[in-house]
């Protein structure tokens, strides 16, 4: 499914089994993108949060 990078505008394909919340990396600019919704043939993303104050193991 098609993904459009909000940072650099590159278009790339997501994995077929993509799920909401998955982190994709833009192959052009390297930005990490979080999947916010999955539509017909395309996937919406936003730049992923780098790290929250209480994140981690």
């Amino acid at each position, binding site marked *: 499914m098609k993904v459009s990078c909000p940072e650099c505008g590159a278009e790339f394909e997501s994995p077929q089994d993509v*799920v*909401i*919340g*998955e*982190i994709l990396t833009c192959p052009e600019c390297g930005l990490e993108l*979080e*999947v916010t919704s999955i539509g017909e043939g395309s996937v919406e993303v936003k730049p*992923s949060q780098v*790290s*929250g*104050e*209480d*994140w*981690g*193991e």
Partner: protein
Amino acid sequence: MGITIGIVYDQIRWEEKAIIETAKARGIKVNLINAKQSFFNITHRDKDDLENLGDVLLQRCVSYFRNLHLTAILENKGYYVVNPYKVSSICGNKLLTSITLSRAGIPTPETYVAFTPEGALSAFKKLNRPAILKPIVGSWGRLIVPLKDEETALAVFEEREYMFPLYQIYYIQDMVKRPPRDIRTFVIGDEVVAGIYRYSFTDVKTNIARGGKAEYCQITDELRELSLKAAEVVGGGILGVDMMETENGFVVHEINHTVEFKATVETTGVNIPKYIVGYLIRKAKK
């Protein structure tokens, strides 16, 4: 009726994807529960207000407070959550972990706690050795500071006065003499399935998330016994036990309840997702 595993998440990382794929390959139904899009009536205890989320739930939220509080809600609704609230509340808090480990007689680094910069300085003087200041709740090595002399220690303590009150609980731990690495073992139920060394030559922090390098670590009988005992005293489940090698043997300094394992699978070849799914199936059948 087949088993359904519910996975509670806020981000799908390599680990979550691997667990999902492993479960599906075994014919297990996976229900993904996105914490960011969920809401719950917490004054209503029945499950009726929810679709059935699963026969067992795996808590994988990367945000600790979201993880812990969501587990409390789901347990109250009658779900079995891995790891349980009690386990996560101890493991997510270094002070509670130190208390729990030391009470059970498990070797752990000597640690003082104080509540003001003055108290913290007195504790540092009493310890009379290089120490590490750690936030009692925190991960990936954030805000962990080596303390080597009184002047800089006091400056660090005073700076914390301008931070969130949680950072004003001064947890001061002996900086134990150890090789430039620590050990992480993976406990799943009553098995120790894998172990890695985490190396850092330039930093007291060995977290992989901070650039620490993983290497295979053989699970000796001593490591196995200590790992299982440490996991048991915090309540057991799917846990990462962090240890250091000292002149007097191993000390356990942390136990992780939402454990990352990509580097471990790559380094050891152990199929950790398979063990996790197996454990969840056993819990679902109970």
